[in-house]
């Protein structure tokens, strides 16, 4: 008798613990399912992979993720790529002067592989491309083919794999973006500027932050040969070569404050010239295309008022670059560059 009571107690207890397990798994499973449904409906990064609700645009301060939405916007046929050193190039200057429709797709902090992923994404989403501007800083001239350490660029957002994309939507950040997109859909919030332009001079207004004027240490003379193999630059070459011949391309090396410009006759100068040569060869023969090296020692690059820090120039220089790009699209490598 007591034994049968005991075994029924045990089974009652097991059933109660079983309900606990069911409650745990149910809450976890239903919660996960709801999140998945929300993501499929909203597409938090507006990448075009999901998004049954058809909401357009994002509210995302992070250009690295916001670029997915802009890069597939059919209103634009032309784009600017690079990192923060290309951020002040203004589509509002380039578009009317060239007759094309430019979108800013720079990704601050991204290394060249990330920038190439955005370039590839843009190309895949535009059957007709007008023109491209690629801001190629020193990082493109690395001889090391290995990816940079701790590269946190969201390749999953640009590589086109639905599964990889979905896997990265299970996060607080994606949920936050989803709710922001819902507010855009409901009309209670405005999407960010579709052309992606934002000036860091809003944070560092002119007359404020600037680099210190120091005397750069004398770099030793160098008379040897440097390697002309630039693996990352080669990736860019491959991407540009795939484009139809009528797509105009301007590659430009952004200006830096004079203290970090390679001194003539030094190893750094030889490396810089070898890299420039490789850039030139990428656009050689392509109509309305050009390579411009703005990393030169002159009155503009010596004035600290023209820079926020050693590598980020101000609007005065950016306007000069915009003019150089516009001239290049008109006259190719015969363009007169005023810098």
């Amino acid at each position, binding site marked *: 008798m007591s034994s049968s009571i005991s075994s029924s107690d045990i089974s009652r*207890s097991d059933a*109660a613990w079983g309900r606990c397990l069911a409650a745990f798994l149910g809450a976890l499973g239903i*919660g*996960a399912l709801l999140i998945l449904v929300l993501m499929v409906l909203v597409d938090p990064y507006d990448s075009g992979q999901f998004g049954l609700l058809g909401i357009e645009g994002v509210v995302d301060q992070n250009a690295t993720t916001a670029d997915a939405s802009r890069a597939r916007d059919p209103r634009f046929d032309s784009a600017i790529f690079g990192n923060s050193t290309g951020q002040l190039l203004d589509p509002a200057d380039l578009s009317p002067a060239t007759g094309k429709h430019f979108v800013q797709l720079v990704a601050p902090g991204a290394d060249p592989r990330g920038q190439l992923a955005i370039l590839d994404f843009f190309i895949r989403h535009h059957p007709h491309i007008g023109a491209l501007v690629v801001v190629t800083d020193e990082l493109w001239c690395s001889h090391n083919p290995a990816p940079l350490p701790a590269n946190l660029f969201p390749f999953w957002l640009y590589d086109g794999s639905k599964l990889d994309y979905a*896997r990265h939507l*299970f*996060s*607080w*950040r994606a949920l936050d973006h989803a709710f922001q997109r819902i507010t855009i859909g409901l009309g209670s919030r405005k999407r960010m500027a579709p052309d992606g332009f934002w000036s860091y001079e809003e944070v560092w207004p002119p007359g404020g932050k600037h680099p210190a004027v120091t005397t750069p240490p004398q770099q030793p003379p160098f008379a040897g040969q440097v390697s002309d193999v630039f693996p990352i630059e080669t990736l860019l070459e491959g991407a540009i070569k795939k484009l139809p011949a009528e797509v105009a391309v301007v590659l430009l090396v952004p200006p830096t404050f004079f203290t970090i410009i390679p001194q003539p006759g030094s190893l750094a100068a030889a490396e810089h010239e070898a890299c420039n040569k490789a850039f030139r060869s990428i656009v050689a023969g392509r109509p309305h295309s050009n390579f411009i090296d703005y990393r030169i020692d002159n009155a503009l690059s010596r004035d600290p008022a023209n820079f926020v820090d050693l590598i980020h120039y101000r609007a005065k220089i950016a306007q000069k670059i915009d003019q150089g790009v516009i001239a290049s699209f008109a006259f190719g490598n015969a363009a007169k560059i005023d810098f």
Partner: protein
Amino acid sequence: MLFSDYPFLLVFLPAAIVIYRLADPHPRWRIAVLLLLSFVFYGYWNPPSVVLLAASIVMNWLAMLAYQRTKWPAVVTAMIVIDLLVLGVFKYANFFVYNLGVALDRPMPQLDIVLPLGISFFTFHHIMYLADLRRGKAPSCSLGRYALYIAFFPQAIAGPLARWSQVMHQFGRRVYSPGWQRQFCIGISFIAIGLFEKILLGDRIGRLLDPIYAQADRGQVLNGDSWLALVFNIQILFDFAGYSDIAIGLGLLFGVQLPFNFNAPFRSTSIQDFWQRWHMTLMLFLRDYVFHPLANARIVPRRFRLLQYFGAMLLTMTLCGLWHGASWSFVLWGILHGGALVGCSLWRRHGPRLPPLIGWALTVVFVLLTGVIFRAATLDAAWNVFCGLAIPPTLDRGKHLVPVVVVPLIAFLLPASQDIVARLTARPRPLLAGLLGIGMLALLLEIGDRELHEFIYFQF
């Protein structure tokens, strides 16, 4: 495969549970299936290292067989020496070569050696079994059961260092027998708490501390950041206690109760108390297999036995430091803790009784200060952190410093996780279980947000 990463939590673990559920009704399959799962888990990190693990298991098991047949203690001793040599080559060869170069004042080549994951832990598991075999305490066992003792995936990589007597008899038992639902609830609670400790407490502090220690490695630490660097020991507590709790929870899902590893160590009122609450399974190993043999060996005359006792204590802790890594900073850390244990022991014999609050404060300050030596890459880096303490801390980073205040308070005030789990699972409460499910979902979303910190103890 990290316990706190998606590949483990969303793929390996559910698959392992389903596969083992299918094997559970068949007694002959239970150990084999669990062993296979363990090798898959271990091989995911570096497939070739499975060969080393398997070879190590087979060699030690053959040594056990040879000892059973011959009863020659030398067989066991030789095997333990081989185990230690293998550990020494993988873990200390470069350290030895480097210091030899320094001593001879000539550069020596560094060997290209990859430290196999968990080698320190599985070597100690071998030693515990073989030493007890020689003492006549451990029984012989099948190759499968022995292999599972060494490779059981919840404990293989970073412990807890379970004795053979604690776990071996549990392998092969039926998991899905009456009461399994409760075991699962307890296991899941341990996993949830462990993930909380690791992701929300340990990693959060780690993100604040990593740049500070990187700066200390380069030079002076400015802005009073050294004061933040002091909380490293709290980070490692939640990192490793979190790992251990997940391991314990996983063990329960496969019918094995692993020993507890931490017992609220930052509530200790003396350094002796601390070492009875911190990484308890390692300390029990060191006590039984290093300290006791050293302290009880008839090496010195009777009147010097106390000196031998303290010497054994100091040497044990020095080896404990060296076990954590091939670096002089670990050795110094071990010596300091050994010295503190000797000092504490002498104080207990000859000094006045300290009020618990003062004992607690002294213990915490000592542990946090020596934690800097443990964490810093070099002694120079540790010195840079200590020099930086001359600059008072600045509070202008506001809310970013909240973890540095809140997380230590949790370490000081909350009971051990096993006590929390015992309270949570005292009786079945479906509502609480549902809330735990939502909490687990929140943790999974948190994992999706970030690149994970590897568990600190993986490097040991």
